[in-house]
């Protein structure tokens, strides 16, 4: 809380410097956040308390919701987003790095708020790195215990110090990349403000832009290519980044997940390029540029757009829809099911056939030459099942509010995977403004569930959690 309060001060100052009228709103929100954080800290702080598993789940889930509330305050107080539901939607969409917006016209928004909006995503991204690299493997959510050994930092059994050290190490990498992409944007002709905003949302795989037409609004191949590359990097496991930055290329080369990530991306880019060349684009290079951009933007769950993919063939749109479920690598800022789970499922299905033929043989599943137990595989499959179930539930609710079939499907998939644009009436050229408030609330719940890898939320809902 204290942290968020201080962070809001940054856009406040900038807003003040730019002479905009929204700075009081930001200042007040910052004050509220600092005060609230200070009070809770003071009241509940007991230095020696040891965090237990359950508390971990609880803090993470609650933290995200609180952040969402605080993030919404500036939008609402400033009067730029008059309805609370909308402000909440925008804020949650930010903190979960989704990037869905209810703003019809982004360009008229005050700069202070736009910066805040981008910053929310960047902070969300920081949270996710801690969550996915430090917390989830320790808690063993959805098979993520596979990554337990990979987490850098000292291996202390207590959760708190370990998480802190890991987080700080990886945040350094995150900041480094953000600065790098910001500088590259600036060189490419964005002004400093837009460079900063886009740097924030690129590395967080968020997708908020300061332009109505998103990255497409810059009309610059350079910016498109830079964004594509950095989105791809943001979709990689940050532990891998940390390793190769320190000169250790081995994990990069042996990681099966990384090979699949590259393979899937390249295959999809080739397919989309071929299918859009001659139909939508005259030049193969333009086709390649937009294909690569869109594929990476969706696969890494960033959700920027350089071109309205609704104009492309159904098969291409479907591919992108499927990618919304895939997401980037585990341990990145991307959402979705994650490549590693997908690849283990594919492998397991293949082995299942062998197992039927040889009922008595033991055919173990391996990842990076490590055995994966049946228990872990079941956990991953349960994860996917719950993911799909929640997706279905969300779609039913959306359809019940009167939205058509494909739009409901697209909006929910997009929210679950933290992408941003969906299909139909919530496609990349549209916004979420016209949805029914119930639909908006449903989508924010989907975003949080998707972001926190489902289980965190589900646990709070399960009766067993409250029993001591």
């Amino acid at each position, binding site marked *: 809380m204290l942290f968020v309060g201080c962070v809001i001060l940054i856009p406040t100052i900038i807003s003040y410097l730019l002479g905009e009228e929204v700075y009081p709103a930001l200042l007040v929100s910052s004050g509220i956040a600092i005060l609230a954080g200070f009070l809770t800290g003071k009241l509940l702080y007991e230095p020696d308390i040891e965090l237990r*598993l*359950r508390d971990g*789940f609880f803090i993470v889930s609650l933290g995200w919701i609180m952040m969402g509330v605080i993030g919404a305050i500036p939008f609402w107080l400033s009067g730029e987003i008059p309805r609370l539901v909308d402000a909440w939607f925008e804020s949650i969409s930010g903190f979960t790095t989704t990037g869905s917006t209810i703003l019809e016209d982004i360009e008229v928004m005050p700069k202070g708020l736009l910066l805040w909006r981008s910053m929310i995503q960047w902070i969300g991204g920081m949270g996710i790195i801690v969550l996915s690299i430090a917390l989830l493997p320790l*808690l*063993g*959510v959805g098979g993520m215990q596979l990554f337990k050994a990979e987490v850098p930092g000292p291996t202390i059994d207590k959760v708190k110090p370990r998480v802190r050290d890991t987080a700080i190490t990886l945040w350094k990498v995150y900041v480094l990349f953000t600065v790098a992409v910001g500088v590259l944007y600036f060189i490419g002709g964005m002004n400093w403000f837009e460079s900063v905003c886009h740097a924030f949302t690129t590395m967080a795989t968020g997708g908020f832009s300061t332009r109505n037409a998103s990255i497409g609004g810059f009309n610059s191949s350079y910016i498109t290519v830079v964004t594509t590359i950095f989105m791809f990097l943001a979709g990689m496991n940050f532990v891998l980044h940390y390793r190769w930055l320190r000169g250790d290329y081995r994990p990069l080369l042996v990681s099966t997940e990384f090979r699949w990530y590259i393979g899937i991306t390249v295959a999809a880019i080739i397919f989309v390029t071929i299918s859009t060349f001659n139909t939508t684009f005259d030049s193969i290079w333009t086709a390649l540029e937009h294909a690569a951009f869109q594929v990476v933007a969706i696969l890494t769950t960033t959700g920027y757009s350089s071109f309205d993919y609704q104009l492309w*063939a*159904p*098969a291409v*749109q*479907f*591919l992108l*829809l*499927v990618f919304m479920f895939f997401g980037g690598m585990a341990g990145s800022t991307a959402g979705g099911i994650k490549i590693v789970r997908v690849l283990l*499922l*594919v492998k*397991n*299905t293949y082995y*299942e*056939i*062998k197992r*039927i*033929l040889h*009922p008595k043989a033991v055919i173990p599943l391996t990842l990076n030459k490590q055995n994966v137990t*049946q*228990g872990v*595989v*079941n*956990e991953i*499959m*349960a*994860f*996917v*099942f*719950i993911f*799909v*179930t929640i997706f*279905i539930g969300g*779609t*039913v609710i959306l*359809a*019940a509010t*009167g*939205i*058509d*079939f*494909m739009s*409901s499907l697209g909006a929910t998939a997009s929210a679950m995977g933290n992408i941003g644009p969906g*299909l139909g009436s919530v496609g990349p050229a549209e916004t979420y403004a016209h949805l029914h408030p119930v639909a908006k609330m449903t989508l924010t719940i989907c975003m949080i569930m998707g972001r926190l890898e489902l*289980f965190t939320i*589900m*646990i709070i809902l*399960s009766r*067993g*959690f409250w029993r001591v």
Partner: protein
Amino acid sequence: MNFRAIGAVIGFLFMFCGIAMSTSLPFSLYYRSGDGGALGITALGSFLVGLFLYRLFREHRHNMKIREGVFVVGVGWLILSSVGAIPFLLVGVIDNFTDAFFEMISAFTTTSATTLDSIEALPHGLLFFRSIAHWIGGMGMIVLSLAILPMLGVGGMQMFHAEVPGPTHDKLSPRIKQTAALLWTVYAAVSGVLTVLLMFGGMNLFDALSHTFGTMGTGGCSTRDAGLAYYDSEYINILVTVFMIIAGMNIAVQYRILRGEVSLLWTGSELRFYFGLIITVSLVVIGYRSITGAVLNGTMISDSVFHVVSVGTTTAFANSDFSAWGSMMVFVFFLLMFTGACAGSTSGAMKSIRILVLFKAAFAEIIRLVHPRAIVPVRVNKRALPTEVIGRIFAFFIIYLTSFVLASFVMMLLGLSMYDAFGTVAAMLGNIGLGFQGDTISSEYGHIPMFGKWVLAFCMVLGRLEFFTLLLILSPTFWKN
């Protein structure tokens, strides 16, 4: 692989196909529909080929093992459909093999998708053959799901291994033969009852038999383009609804209920889930329709229940068009296409038991996360399931989803819209037949390009054989000794 044993069984299949086809001859002659010659020749030919093969390999017929069984199951569907396609071509109502094959494979897999604009235009003999093919497909499914799949352990079906009535021999064929004979008797008896009841409702023998076949095979074929709506009879609609529910029950359970174990109706985990699902979804549909403006009366209620049961048991009679009920209803019915009725019934799709286990296992996973050291069993019928079985069921779910995604993708490459492709592929994989086509819901697929029809035919068999059986045959490991 013992091809001689396979030859014997395939010979038997040919003979069987010939006999089945000849049952439509009386109707052809009675209605003077002019297709008697074609049907007769094909039936005779098929019977003779079968007899020849059977005589040749007769002494090997007991050497069947699991591998041979799987192969026969896969190839059997193709053989029956290919032979069945011949009379359609001979009579000339369908002018190419693809369409005729599609027609028959959809019948034998109890899907009842068609390429014809109007089935009423078919001569009576062929129409009857098309209907009885659904019923025979249902018989095949009973053997498959109660004798072969539990043995293979496809998608967790080994949990039914013990439940199947009949003697437990180690060899495949005697066991299958006796189990099948027992359960086919039940199947035939229930079908007989339905036929008589339908005739009370004013149908003639021909229509009553055809609709019985469509109902009991959970195929949904009709002799009318308008489906059951043609008869405009509340009695028939309710009667068919009830029998669809029965057809969706595990036939082994039907057998035990008939023998007096009525309490199974409310004690079995799967049945409870199955009934619960039908009731819940029906209530949702009725509720949603009454909120959105439909008048709440008896017709509306029975109509809603009819549709829920019809799609939920993967029967799908073409009656009224549920696409007019709003996008939420379309989505609900779309989901129903994936659930299916009970395992061991003639219905297709995922089956209630699997969905039940999926939910229970997912919930257990969540509990396990909070209490990492706790042992959380997943129970079905008061027995805890082993981890491997749960793994198999999850794997089944994943492969269902994957097949759906891949097939939809191919259909979109062939030019279908995303919505149509979703609806069509879901209808084929679940052996429903009734799919989305633009603004309407229809089981007529004449407009699909030729390659697309083969893809859909593949989907029907894939879904019918519970995915792994067909994938098994297609995998290189299967052919290695």
